[in-house]
């Protein structure tokens, strides 16, 4: 589904990413892990169109994604969330998700003038919104302002917003950061449920318990390079990975 090939980018002479290649398949949870500064978010930025790479290509559904606007990439079905919680603070949860459901699809300007068109769009959006909110367990906070939700709820809301856009491949950037263990477990259940719906998932995470429990495949980045790739069990035993985590960086697995 997603083919990342030989992606590299450097800032001011330093390689943020170098020759990173991997694939992500539908109905699979692929986790990207690595110490801080390994280049994981940069990778997401490049794949989702927010940054241009120096080298490499990103093929999604046989289409080249490099050079496209982030909105075009999202419309193609490749949707991401952000490391720092991003919501539509001033809007209600319901309205935010409603907007999320229509963003992907174009609504021609002339249709605003045609009687009934707005009502139709409204009804469809409402229905899809309720489905998404129910799936994510946010139905009871639908009337609240996004900014008024608790931190954990906001992180789930982020995923709800991404789901509203009907992704085929969902890229989650540290969705469990700042969550307590029970919230993290709830998140893990949500992610596996999304996978069972046929959506592919790529996950950046530091919460290794979560990663080990739900991932089908793990990719380890270190200093901008891929140093290991494989199933959770194999990765846990991989000496290079252990060295990377416990070595010079001072970062310990959670």
């Amino acid at each position, binding site marked *: 589904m997603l083919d990342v090939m030989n992606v590299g980018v450097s800032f001011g002479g330093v390689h943020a990413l170098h020759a990173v290649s991997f694939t992500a398949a539908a109905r699979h949870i692929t986790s990207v892990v690595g110490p801080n500064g390994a280049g994981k978010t940069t990778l997401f930025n490049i794949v*989702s169109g*927010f940054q241009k790479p120096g080298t490499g290509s990103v093929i999604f559904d046989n289409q080249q994604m490099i050079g496209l*606007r*982030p*909105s*075009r990439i*999202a*419309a193609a079905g490749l*949707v*991401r*969330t*952000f490391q720092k919680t*991003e*919501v*539509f*603070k*001033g*809007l*209600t949860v319901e*309205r935010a998700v*409603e*907007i*999320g459901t*229509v*963003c*992907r*699809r174009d*609504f021609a*300007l002339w*249709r*605003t*003038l045609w009687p009934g*068109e*707005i009502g139709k*769009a*409204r009804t469809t*959006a409402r229905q899809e919104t309720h489905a998404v909110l129910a799936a994510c367990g946010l139905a009871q906070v639908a009337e609240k*302002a996004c900014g008024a939700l608790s931190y954990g709820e906001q992180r789930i809301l982020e995923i709800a*917003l*991404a789901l*509203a*856009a009907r992704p085929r491949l969902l890229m989650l950037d540290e969705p469990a950061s700042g969550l307590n263990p029970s919230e993290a477990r709830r998140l893990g259940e949500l992610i596996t449920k999304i996978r069972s719906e046929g959506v592919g998932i790529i996950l950046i995470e530091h919460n290794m318990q979560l990663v080990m429990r739900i991932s089908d495949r793990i990719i380890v980045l270190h200093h901008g390079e891929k140093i290991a790739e494989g199933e959770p069990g194999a990765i846990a035993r991989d000496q290079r990975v252990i060295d990377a985590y416990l070595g010079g960086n001072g970062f310990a697995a959670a």
Partner: protein
Amino acid sequence: MVMTGMARPSVAVPLGLLGLVLLVLPRLVGTDYYLHVAIISLVFVILAASLDLLVGYSGLLSLGHTAFFAFGAYSAALLYLHFGVPLWGTMFVSGAFAAAIAWLLGLLILNVRGHRFVITTVIFAEIGRLIAYNWTDLTNGQIGLPGIRPPVLDIPGLPRIDFGGRAAYYYLALAVAAVSVSVIWRMAHSPVGWRMLALRENERLAEASGVDTRQIATTAFVSSAFFAGLAGALYAHYTGFVSPDLFYFSYTTTMLIMVFLGGKGTIVGPVIGAVLFTILPEALRVTANYRLMIFSLILLLLVVFAPEGLVGLFNRLRLRFTRQKKTAHA
């Protein structure tokens, strides 16, 4: 401001009543002066509603809006004076002309945000004024262009309607304003308007959700300019005169006050604000000099202490009232 649902059915009754009042207004007020105020307020209703699309819905602080109004007025004037085109034609050409300028300007400035965007819109209006002032061959410079007549309606089989009279022009302006506001309202409450909200609330998230932020910003910019230009034509054919003064920032200030007084991001609010803020200054009869001092003070207080405007206050009161009712029943 937290966005809630669409208008409820119970609004239909007061709306109907309002419509009735508007239709018989000339009978009710009688004097030409009040009709004049009404017509001017209708022009500003269109301007305020169009500005709300930009400032309220899209979060684009475009402070050169009067330039589109003025460009529309000038194009109407020139079309009429040189080619005899009546309002029926100039309305749409002015709108299209202003929209085209907005589109071109947008190419330049819609990839920046923040203070840079703001200052460029202000500069744009200043450039417009300089051109109108100095290109005397075309615009007659400071003196302006007089003699733009209201239209007549010649439908075979029907009596000729001359819109030169105040009452007649009032109905004309009312019709144009009603159609314009309802189009703007529909835009705002459609997926197009939702995309504008997304742009306003969180541009990065909007882009990541599939909203082409550049495109939606352009749509907002161009459509609001269209209506401003249209309002310019309406104004020109009424007052009969255009001058570089139309590019002055004071017009934008007035529109901003109307948007904030009524409540930005609601369309209805700015409409109310436009009516109120055309009537109030006339009612208070302060001299022109003190007028701007008071207006600017009002704007300052609104922005700092009541950014939601009247509609926002009304919603807050209504929420408190319904909550009290709920606790009373509990």
